[in-house]
């Protein structure tokens, strides 16, 4: 039994190594093609760019120029960081309140949060973009407020699920020692909730960074683009895509994600598991 298992294990390692290489192939393919002259990309996508096809960094330069990619990168970063920070702060506070104060209002809020998680975005997209326009929320700053409203359901649900399990005695002791509710929350409850914070951060970052439809409808896209909007912008109005520029833009968009992933992999995977168990 023992020997059979190790032998099988060795074969499995080889098989899965090959599958993993195949799994990475689409990304490698984009990378390889990003150095190819644009006329050759659709024609010979699987060929290595040799002297005649090789164009160096030309595709990258053109892609960045056409889409304003670096400013899009900046706005994506700005929107994601601040939206997630605001969501964490406001929703954790709200969740603590509704898990400690029991009355009709708080139970209605909780029900709304569950409800919000089921409603598809298409139900809201038209009216939301009109309301955002009317209230002048069509800037990256306004978008943060909208993301708070839209991300509140999941975040409050996750936070209150955790905070219900914190023993009340800890908070009561703090209050008896003279802490105000604000001090109790920031010095005791929030530090205890750190694992849930990480989970919510991971889930919201993965959503907001990659979100295309909401920002493309709400933002004034002539002035502000996010990464997905910049990529889709290359498609333009009618038909043909500049495949060279597209490859360059795709590579530049993927690199930050892969770096982020390799550094925070442990948290990301734990966050996904924790999010799934509670969701």
């Amino acid at each position, binding site marked *: 039994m023992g020997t059979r298992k190790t032998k099988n294990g*060795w074969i499995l*390692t080889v098989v899965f190594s090959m599958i993993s290489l195949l799994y990475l192939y689409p990304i490698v393919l984009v990378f390889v093609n990003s150095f190819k002259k644009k006329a050759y990309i*659709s024609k010979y*996508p699987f060929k290595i760019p040799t002297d005649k096809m090789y164009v160096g960094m030309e595709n990258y330069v053109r892609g960045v120029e056409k889409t304003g990619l670096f400013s899009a990168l900046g706005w994506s970063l700005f929107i994601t960081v601040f939206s997630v920070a605001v969501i964490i702060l406001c929703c954790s506070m709200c969740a603590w309140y509704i898990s400690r104060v029991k009355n009709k209002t708080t139970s209605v809020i909780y029900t*709304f949060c569950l409800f919000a998680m089921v*409603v598809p975005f*298409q139900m809201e997209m038209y009216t939301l973009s009109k309301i955002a326009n009317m209230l002048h929320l069509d800037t990256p700053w306004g978008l943060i*407020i909208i993301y708070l409203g839209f991300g509140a359901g999941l975040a409050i649900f996750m936070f209150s699920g955790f905070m219900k399990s914190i023993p009340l005695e800890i908070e009561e002791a703090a209050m008896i020692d003279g802490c105000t509710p604000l001090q109790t929350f920031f010095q005791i409850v929030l530090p205890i909730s750190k694992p849930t914070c990480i989970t919510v951060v991971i889930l919201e970052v993965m959503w907001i960074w990659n979100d295309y439809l909401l920002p493309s409808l709400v933002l004034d896209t002539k002035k502000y683009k996010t990464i997905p909007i910049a990529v889709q912008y290359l498609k333009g109005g009618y038909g043909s895509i500049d495949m060279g520029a597209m490859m360059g833009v795709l590579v530049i968009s993927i690199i930050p994600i892969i770096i982020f992933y390799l550094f925070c992999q442990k948290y990301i995977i734990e966050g996904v598991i924790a999010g799934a168990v509670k969701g």
Partner: protein
Amino acid sequence: MEKAIKKYFPIFVLPTMLAFAIGFIAPFLLGIYLSFCKFTTVTDAKFIGISNYTKILGDSVFIHSLWYTALFTVVSVILINVLAFIVAMFLTKGIRGTNVFRTVFFMPNLIGGIILGYIWQLLLNGILAHFQRTLTYSSTYGFWGLIILMCWQQVGYMMIIYISGIQSIPGELTEAAKIDGASSWQALRHVTLPMLMPSITICTFLTLTNGFKLFDQNLALTNGAPSRMSEMLALNIYNTFYGRTGYEGVGQAKAVVFFLIVAVIALVQNKLTRSREVQQ
């Protein structure tokens, strides 16, 4: 303590609730109202009863996209979950390199749908070119292209959930089954799978709603071509809103129908699988 906290309502709850009201509740209610109206902007809405809804019934493109989406969802739910489960079983056997494989399989989840769509467009069109075809040759190519893309993206995510589920099954249970003479198939069928029901519930729910609500990948990969035949529900609703003036009301009515379908699926699916979970 409750009383002390209660006074802090404006600080703790109000900011979130204001944003929630602007970003979620107001658009939702307005959306329901507008689905009974004719309008081109929010301010010129005229109440016209249910005629937006009756128009949907005669919209053959919408009906087609409904079935196309339903079929896509069924196929993708089955394929993604079966593949993710098989991979998870292998990656919990303690083979060498497990962590590397897990890292690789999960990675596509962090890349956005638009970017994924263009990556796969390049690869799939490259392969199809050998057969003088493209992804937009017929809706069947778009369908399977999208299935392959979604498997590539989501198998890793579901695999992570299955792995954590498998690892939480106490080892004694499978040992006991083995001692009682169960074959590995029987142990899988009667011990592992029932114990995994919570993970299966979550994964089916996630893949089901992801499939039904799919938009970005559909937009980037085929954009509904040829002639709106590979258009899924979400994209159909989007095109109804922004493709044709005068049809905003119909678009909103479609959105309400879409919401109802998603809500019913979520409720039914949750009831069904929860009832089959093993009590621990």
